């Protein structure tokens, strides 16, 4: 299962997709436009993810390359493919590496810019501005609270005399000085008095430490950035135990600005102190992304090279097969280009032609060899036959008169010898016929008439066999050697008759049947002859080899002669399988 997943391209596609996604994501994060923050932790996580994906990719690619190189060593003919891949990798990898190196240099230049003097000054200045603003704000608050305390001291008698007028005066002072909340507290932090618009429920007393410090005459300023407010505490000189406690709200935006400036400058200095580390991280991210792209392109280069060279490799293998003599090899068209389709078709036609030529040559060589054998056999058999026949005749003439005892036996023996010698003579004649068969003399003849004539002869003599002729050919007059084709027909019909006789010896009631069907197409006339005799007792194909016979007294030349004549007429002799009897298909080329 795991092997299957590894060998399939699915894992490759997935890791390709992931590496691209994470590469882009990392770059975005680095430029600060991603949805996650640019901080050390995130960058480390992203780097680890990227490197893991690269490792998977690297593993897949190396595995593929090893398999590929191993294969190309085992199977020759893949060197084309290997060259393709080398070129592809070269063409894709070299420019990418150059681009990567230059980009990295630019990157470094960019990082160095970050830390040059101008940027440094800007950061420092903004921190300075923030600090100044804060100080100014605080000193203004300090001034206000001191002035307010002063005014209250002067009119503090109102506090005990007329609470209503003091309330108005207190409110007025607070409003005038833009102080949101003003309280009077004692040294225990207990609330004594407040402006009418203060939110008494939210009142929280300042820390005892601050109160003690105010008791000693100090003006206390408490900035609470989280609450966006600045609190001030001062002792009223007119009374022993009363403190003025004010709260002024600061503009939240200003507070945020101050906060951000602080954080940014902290981060900036942290980065600056670690700028070498940053450069290395940056380079690592970059190298990881670029190398994943290079690996990817190599991977696809291998796939593309495979695709391009596959048809050529197929051709190489097919050609190799042909070179060792296997002409049966066929190139199957799958998904190759049209050009390859044409090439394959041509290749297939070529091999077919060669095969046909080879068969033709082999056949004619075989005929030649058999002709030689037949000629020699005929000669060697015929030579002794003459003196044998002569001597036999002499014995008959001269000695039959002198024999008195067992004369009948004597003559019988002589007759047997004479008959057998005659058979041998016939055989020898058949051999020399086969050997000396002339080239066909093709003239316009009527095939239909020839077949009808041949059958009509047999119809008269063979009462126990039914002949059935179906002539459905559209052509009956064409050029062929009348004598030779007639010989073919007689030979085949004779074979059928003999095979029917043989069967009738076992089954006296058998009605012999010979069907003859003639058909044609544009190039050939076909004569199909079918009988219900004993059929072929051997593999039919062997029967066209001279001297092969299944008959008791056959020379084994009949079907060889038929086959030879048909071949010289551009045709062929085919045996069609049939369970009961024999079926033969003859073809003759029209012109």
């Amino acid at each position: 299962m795991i092997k299957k997943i590894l060998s399939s391209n699915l894992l490759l596609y997935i890791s390709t997709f992931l590496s691209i996604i994470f590469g882009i994501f990392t770059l975005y994060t680095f430029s600060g436009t991603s949805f996650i923050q640019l901080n050390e932790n995130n960058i480390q996580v992203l780097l680890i993810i990227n490197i893991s994906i690269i490792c998977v990719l690297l593993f897949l690619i190396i595995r593929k390359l090893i398999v590929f190189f191993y294969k190309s060593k085992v199977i020759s003919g893949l060197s084309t493919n290997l060259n393709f891949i080398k070129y592809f990798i070269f063409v894709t990898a070299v420019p990418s590496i150059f681009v990567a190196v230059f980009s990295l240099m630019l990157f470094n230049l960019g990082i160095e810019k970050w830390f040059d003097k101008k940027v440094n000054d800007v950061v420092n200045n903004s921190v300075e501005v923030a600090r100044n603003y804060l100080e100014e704000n605080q000193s203004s608050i300090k001034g206000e609270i001191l002035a307010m305390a002063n005014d209250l001291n002067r009119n503090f008698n109102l506090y005990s005399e007329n609470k209503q007028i003091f309330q108005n005066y207190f409110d007025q002072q607070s409003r005038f000085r833009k102080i949101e909340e003003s309280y009077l507290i004692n040294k225990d932090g207990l609330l004594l008095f407040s402006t009418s618009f203060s939110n008494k429920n939210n009142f929280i007393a300042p820390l005892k430490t601050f109160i003690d410090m105010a008791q000693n005459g100090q003006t206390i300023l408490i900035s609470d950035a989280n609450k966006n407010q600045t609190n001030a505490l001062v002792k009223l000189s007119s009374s022993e135990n009363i403190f003025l406690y004010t709260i002024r709200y600061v503009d939240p935006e200003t507070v945020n600005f101050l906060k951000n400036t602080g954080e940014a400058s902290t981060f900036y200095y942290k980065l600056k102190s670690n700028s070498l580390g940053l450069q290395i991280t940056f380079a690592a991210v970059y190298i990881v992304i670029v190398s994943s792209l290079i690996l990817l392109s190599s991977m696809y280069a291998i796939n593309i090279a495979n695709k391009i060279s596959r048809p050529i490799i197929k051709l190489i293998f097919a050609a190799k097969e042909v070179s060792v003599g296997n002409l049966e090899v066929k190139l199957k068209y799958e998904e190759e280009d049209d050009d390859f389709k044409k090439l394959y078709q041509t290749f297939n036609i070529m091999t077919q032609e060669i095969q046909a030529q080879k068969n033709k040559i082999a056949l004619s060589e075989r005929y030649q060899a058999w002709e030689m054998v037949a000629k020699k056999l005929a000669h060697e058999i015929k030579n002794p036959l003459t003196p044998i026949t002569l001597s036999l005749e002499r014995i008959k003439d001269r000695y039959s008169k002198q024999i008195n005892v067992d004369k009948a036996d004597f003559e019988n023996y002589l007759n047997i010898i004479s008959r057998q010698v005659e058979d041998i003579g016939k055989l020898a004649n058949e051999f020399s016929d086969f050997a000396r068969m002339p080239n066909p003399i093709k003239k316009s003849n009527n095939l239909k008439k020839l077949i009808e004539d041949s059958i009509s002869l047999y119809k008269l003599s063979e009462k126990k066999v039914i002949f059935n002729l179906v002539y459905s050919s559209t052509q009956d007059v064409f050029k062929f050697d009348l004598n030779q084709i007639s010989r073919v027909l007689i030979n085949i019909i004779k074979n059928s008759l003999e095979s029917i006789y043989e069967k009738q010896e076992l089954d006296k009631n058998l009605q012999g049947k010979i069907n003859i069907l003639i058909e044609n197409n544009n190039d050939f006339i076909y004569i199909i002859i079918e009988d219900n005799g004993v059929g072929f007792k051997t593999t039919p194909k062997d029967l066209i080899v001279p001297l092969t016979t299944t008959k008791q007294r056959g020379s084994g030349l009949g079907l060889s002669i038929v086959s030879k004549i048909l071949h010289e007429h551009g045709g062929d002799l085919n045996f069609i399988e049939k369970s009961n009897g024999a079926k033969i298909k003859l073809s003759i080329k029209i012109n």
Partner: protein
Amino acid sequence: MRNEILLIDDEKDIRFAVHEILKENNFFVREADTVEKALSEIKKKLPDLVILDVLLDEKNRDGIDILKFIKSIDADVPVIMISGHANMKLLL
């Protein structure tokens, strides 16, 4: 009566059989098994009839050479040519 026959054949068995038949029919028979012997027999005395096997088992010469020789001496001497192989080309 003209009854002298020259029998030329390289096959001993054939010469024997033919000789016997001819002898029984009162012919006088001379025999030759090679071209050389045949020519010398002809030179000795021209026979009344020649029975000639065309293919004599010799490399350069055969019965046709003997026939030509006989015809060059006397075109009227009858020659019966015998052959185990019906080869029309040779006859013509």
